[in-house]
């Protein structure tokens, strides 16, 4: 009898509810998923709600196509001339960070091409296929908007090139992850996982195991692999499968090559795994783009230039190439027939 009692006690304790509080909501036009482990439910909800409020603030303040956002107003003054205008210290810091990253990426990460993104119809809440106007795209590329055209000084900014139109769509979610991590730590939370539209940052772990994240397959509605995300690490994917439209049998994704003005065609997905740093979140958002846009033989260089060791590429044919360090971190759920380790 004692065995049975002991057995059921063990089984029942295994069924006991874990102190995991998970909240899902919609911000930045996407799904935000916050898991907090090991705190009381009350505390977890309080911290989650604070983080969601700061996400909402970021979303409105730096919205690329709502005309009353701080960012839209700045874009209007950029277009109007070279008169410096006052901007918030936060926006000044964000733009400076984006300038540095744009330079490191050799201008492949270029948030100044808001004009192009708009021309492709991706600056809409509900986008639909657009008429492709080659002349418009050509003009927008020739105007050559660059982050380095922006002059930031004492919380003021102006642009030497009126075609500069900032769109932080490839940066803001990462910035928000870094902000969330800082807030969680400030509130004394030890273990949490924050997912903004697929970009994820981890703090601590899930009980006695690291946080584990699935990497979405670019063509099937299921994860192809999992990665253990250790404390402070972040992961991000750029894919052609979340925002795109198809026209005449061709896929046009939201990742636009600033050199040609056209959506990238040679890649399905790039996943980067970023080691802990105060800008891990930002890098998880930004660093996948230059790799996505690089020619196959330039991907390793693009990763290195951004300080990224761990990356995984699924090319247009579905072939998987990954760095040696990434290969050690990935657990395949559906292992591709052929993988190349770089």
């Amino acid at each position, binding site marked *: 009898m004692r*065995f*049975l009692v002991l*057995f059921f006690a063990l089984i029942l304790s295994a069924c006991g509810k874990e102190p995991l509080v998970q*909240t*899902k*909501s*919609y911000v930045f*036009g*996407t*799904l935000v*998923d916050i*898991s907090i482990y090991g705190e009381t439910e009350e505390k977890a909800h309080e911290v989650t709600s604070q983080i969601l409020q700061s996400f909402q603030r970021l979303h409105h303040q730096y919205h690329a196509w709502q005309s009353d956002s701080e960012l839209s107003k700045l874009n209007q003054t950029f277009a109007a001339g070279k008169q410096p205008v006052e901007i918030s210290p936060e926006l000044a810091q964000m733009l400076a960070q984006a300038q540095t990253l744009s330079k490191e990426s050799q201008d492949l990460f270029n948030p100044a091409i808001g004009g192009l993104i708009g021309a492709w119809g991706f600056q809409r*809440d*509900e*986008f*639909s296929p657009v008429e492709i106007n080659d002349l418009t795209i050509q003009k927008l590329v020739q105007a050559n908007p660059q982050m380095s055209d922006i002059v930031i000084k004492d919380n003021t900014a102006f642009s030497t090139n009126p075609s500069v139109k900032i769109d932080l769509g490839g940066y803001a979610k990462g910035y928000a992850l870094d902000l969330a991590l800082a807030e969680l730590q400030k509130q004394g939370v030890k273990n949490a*996982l924050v*997912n903004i*539209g*697929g*970009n*994820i940052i981890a703090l601590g772990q*899930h009980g006695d195991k690291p*946080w*584990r*994240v*699935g*990497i*979405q397959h670019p063509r099937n*509605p*299921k*994860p192809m692999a*999992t*990665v253990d995300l250790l404390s402070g690490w972040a*992961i*991000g*994917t750029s*894919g052609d499968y*979340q925002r795109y*439209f198809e026209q005449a049998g061709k896929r046009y994704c939201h990742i636009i090559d600033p050199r040609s003005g056209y959506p990238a065609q040679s890649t399905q997905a790039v*996943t980067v795994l970023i080691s802990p740093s105060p800008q891990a979140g930002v890098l998880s958002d930004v660093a996948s783009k230059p790799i996505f846009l690089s020619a196959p033989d330039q991907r390793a260089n693009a990763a290195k230039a951004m300080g990224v060791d761990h990356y995984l590429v699924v090319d247009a044919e579905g072939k998987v190439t990954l760095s040696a360090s990434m290969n050690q971190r990935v657990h395949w*759920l559906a292992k591709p027939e052929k993988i190349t380790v770089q």
Partner: protein
Amino acid sequence: MKGALRWGKPLLGDVLVILVGLIVVAYLIKSLWHNEQAAKLQIRLGDKIYSTYSLDQNRTIDLQGPIGITRIVIADGRARFASSPCPNQYCVHQGWLSHKGQAAFCLPNQVSLELLSGEKPFDSLNY
């Protein structure tokens, strides 16, 4: 009283039989609970869990989201978006979901589907 069934101190054999039985049960629980097909469909609408359905019973669920009615179908242990008012129809194109951990969302109508079983293979999805 000799020969009658009595509850006394269990013999070594009894203990062994019970022990072996428990080990077999524990082994079966461990091996069968982890690799099974999904058992449940969790539907979220906005930031709330709308409902959780068993995949055992075929059914059609219509729910009202911010931009209209989304239809979800459960059939033969699988689930999918059958129709949606969203312009791009990505959710419908995702097709059937059948294994635990699979998920599909419709961002415009704020509906998400997630297949659940005893345990998820990961905490969150990178996409």
